[in-house]
């Protein structure tokens, strides 16, 4: 009996040490977990809305669109993070709002107008930097890593997540309508443009805050992958958002453990774990590849 018990206890402590030890031993691991989880809380629901609006690639586009603002911030006050992030925020907002405006008032769809504006913005940024003859990779300096979060970065991510949650709560109904049936919203209320603008601001806020603290890949990955995975498990918007948040937070935790135990870049590890959740959902969910096929398949057969 006794030796067995000891073995059991030993294996329990090793498991606990494996799962929690890194966070107990190192402050930078605790900061990484808290910061990335806070980002997930704000960015995952935003990702769900982006997905439902068929704008899943907007995050990537906007990560390029912020370049001219970053460059101007750099010209004004040198290699200082706050002006560069603010510049990026303004440039991202201009691109997002202009493309939204074009999509709303012309025949062009939002993905096309966003592509047009982000490419112009990116080219403007490259031109600005070449004007100064500076070969510094500004984006590299702006984009941090999740393992180096200081107090200031943590506070910023916390603020972004709080603002996002409050704004989502306040504008929830308008956002849902605007996202699912914009024509209907336009006929019953004038809140449409406002909701649309609030949403775009939230997208840019989460992206720029996330880029500055932990890099593009982690930020865009954490925004879109949990949302895409959640789509296999739920239909209702509230459930989608909650599931996406849960997948995002668990991905951060497991991803940081993977980065610690397997010596992998932490941003990539977190995104890969979120990707695993997506693949698992794709395979095992009742709505996934092996689940019940929607009616389309029956039509084809017939």
């Amino acid at each position, binding site marked *: 009996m006794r030796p067995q018990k000891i073995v059991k206890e030993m294996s329990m402590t090793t498991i606990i040490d494996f799962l929690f030890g*890194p966070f107990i*031993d*190192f*402050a*930078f*691991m605790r*900061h*990484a977990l808290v910061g990335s989880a806070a980002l997930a809380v704000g960015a995952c629901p935003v990702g769900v809305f982006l997905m439902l609006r068929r704008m899943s690639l907007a995050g990537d586009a906007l990560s390029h669109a912020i370049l001219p603002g970053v460059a101007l911030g750099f010209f004004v006050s040198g290699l200082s993070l706050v002006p560069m992030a603010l510049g990026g925020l303004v440039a991202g907002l201009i691109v997002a709002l202009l493309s939204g405006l074009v999509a709303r008032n012309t025949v062009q769809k939002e993905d096309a107008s966003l592509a047009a504006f982000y490419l112009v913005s990116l080219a403007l940024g490259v031109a600005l930097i070449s004007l100064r003859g500076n070969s510094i*990779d500004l984006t*590299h*300096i702006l984009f*941090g*890593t999740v*393992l*180096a*979060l*200081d107090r200031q970065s943590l506070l910023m991510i916390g603020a972004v997540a709080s603002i996002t949650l409050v704004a989502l709560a306040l504008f929830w109904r308008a956002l849902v309508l605007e996202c699912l049936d914009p024509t209907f919203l336009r006929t019953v209320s004038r809140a449409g443009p406002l909701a649309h603008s609030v949403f775009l601001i939230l997208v840019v806020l989460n992206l720029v805050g996330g880029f500055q603290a932990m*890099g593009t890949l982690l930020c865009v990955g954490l925004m879109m992958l949990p949302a895409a995975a959640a789509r296999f498990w739920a239909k209702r918007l509230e459930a989608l958002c909650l599931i996406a948040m849960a997948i995002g937070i668990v991905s951060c935790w497991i991803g*940081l453990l993977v*980065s*610690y*135990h*397997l*010596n*992998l*870049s*932490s*941003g*990539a*590890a977190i995104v890969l774990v979120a990707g695993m959740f997506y693949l698992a959902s794709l395979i095992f969910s009742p709505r996934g590849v092996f689940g019940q096929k929607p009616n389309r398949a029956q039509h084809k057969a017939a």
Partner: protein
Amino acid sequence: MIRTLAFVLALGISSMASAAPLKAVASITIIADMVHEVGGNLVEVQSIVGPNGDAHSYEARPQDSKTLNEAQIVFINGLGLDPWIEKLTTSSGFKGPLVVVTKGIKTHQFDEDGKQVVDPHAWQDLSNGQIYVTNIAQALCKVDAGNCKVFQANATAYSAKLAELDADIKSRFAALPAANRQVITTHDAFGYFAKAYGLHFLAPEGFATEAEPSAAAIAKLVRQIKHDNITALFFENMSDNRVIEAIAAETGVRAGPPLYADALSNPNEPGATYLAMFKYNTDTLLKALAGK
């Protein structure tokens, strides 16, 4: 003494009036600065690798060939630091003397990518710097024998300054407690400095400055800092300082700004001459090592 000086001065002035300055080229800025000190107004020296440049990975420009072609004497460090210059001198048609200024220096080996090679950064010890100066003066004398006395007087005066700074730095580091002498750095250029002034420089284990680090790499470095009683961190070429600052915050050690290793700085920065570079590096190291 005064008579010799007056004679030297007169000689210098007369030759200045009579001939254009000797055209010299050095491979790196540090040697160029020494040549400038020894040659004074009689020598016009240019460095192939510019301020803040990297001699190890230098890629020659067409302009360098022209510079070398017009040179009357070329100074190099040797010891594997600037091998590209030999090819460049041959192809440029340079016919004058190629002077290896490290002749007579006691070298040591260091580990580079797993191989034991001679550490070329000999100038990082001021007593080696004095050997550089002697070699430079001798070589200048061979090319311009008429001004030899000026060169030698300049060299003696400059060497005295180097020796004075050397003694000063030694006494300042000697005052440092033995527990505060461990530094982790990505610079591989400070082997001679560490030996001369009694410091211990360790390389960070398994930590690449270029790629985004993993949690494992940072944890390993944190453990190493705690285990080896490190007092300060000096990382070069980090485009993102936040990782180093996070490590410093985690361990309570200080992270210093980059040191000047292979090249002097621009004139408006604190490491513009060989002497200034040494003063800056010493001050920076001592500031970081002074206390946890």
